[in-house]
């Protein structure tokens, strides 16, 4: 098989992995959507009313999908993609490790309020994504 076909096959494998991840995530989204619909759109009421087994099942399915999907992803990628992911992960971790303790100290000393963990989480993910996209842009 020539290189163009091998390259096309590698790309197909990437999209197949992505589709598999989507198939794994679909029942989670459908389950949560159905539950929120039953709770007349009240997100908090859905979580409070849902049985523990349902919440635990959704979390287990999400964890299995992420772990299995990551395993397949890291087996399929080349060293440049791996480096891009490592840099992005490092940036996200550094953002978290800097921001949360700093905000916690500021909160304890009364300069700011207590840290908003959701905001820290989003900033950390955003830092990782920014570094990943910057590397992709540089190597396009």
């Amino acid at each position, binding site marked *: 098989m020539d*290189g163009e076909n*091998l390259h096309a096959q590698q790309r197909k494998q990437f999209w197949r992995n992505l589709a598999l991840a989507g198939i794994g995530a679909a029942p989670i989204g459908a389950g949560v959507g159905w539950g929120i619909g039953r709770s007349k759109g009240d997100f908090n009421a859905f979580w409070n009313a849902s049985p523990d087994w349902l919440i635990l099942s959704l979390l287990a399915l999400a964890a299995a999908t992420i772990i299995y999907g990551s395993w397949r992803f890291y087996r399929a990628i080349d060293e440049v993609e791996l480096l891009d992911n490592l840099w992005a992960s490092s940036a996200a971790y550094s953002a978290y490790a800097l921001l949360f303790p700093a905000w916690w100290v500021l909160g304890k000393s009364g300069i700011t309020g207590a840290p908003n963990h959701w905001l820290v989480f989003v900033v950390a993910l955003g830092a990782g994504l920014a570094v990943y996209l910057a590397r992709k842009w540089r190597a396009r």
Partner: protein
Amino acid sequence: LNNRLRVLRAERGWSQAELGGRIGVSRQAVNAIETGKHDPSLPLAFRLARLFGMTIEEIFDDGGKDGR
């Protein structure tokens, strides 16, 4: 690292995707190596050398730097 990858590839009439397929990396990875934005790992450098029937030193040149 300077390298002769683009020339070697052009001599064979291969696209970046073609070369990427032959050594098991993406087109973007070939581009990153050719433009010096990524130094390949030793296993990848050996794959390239085998593919072109050359030594690693004949493809890659560090300009005589000893890295210290």
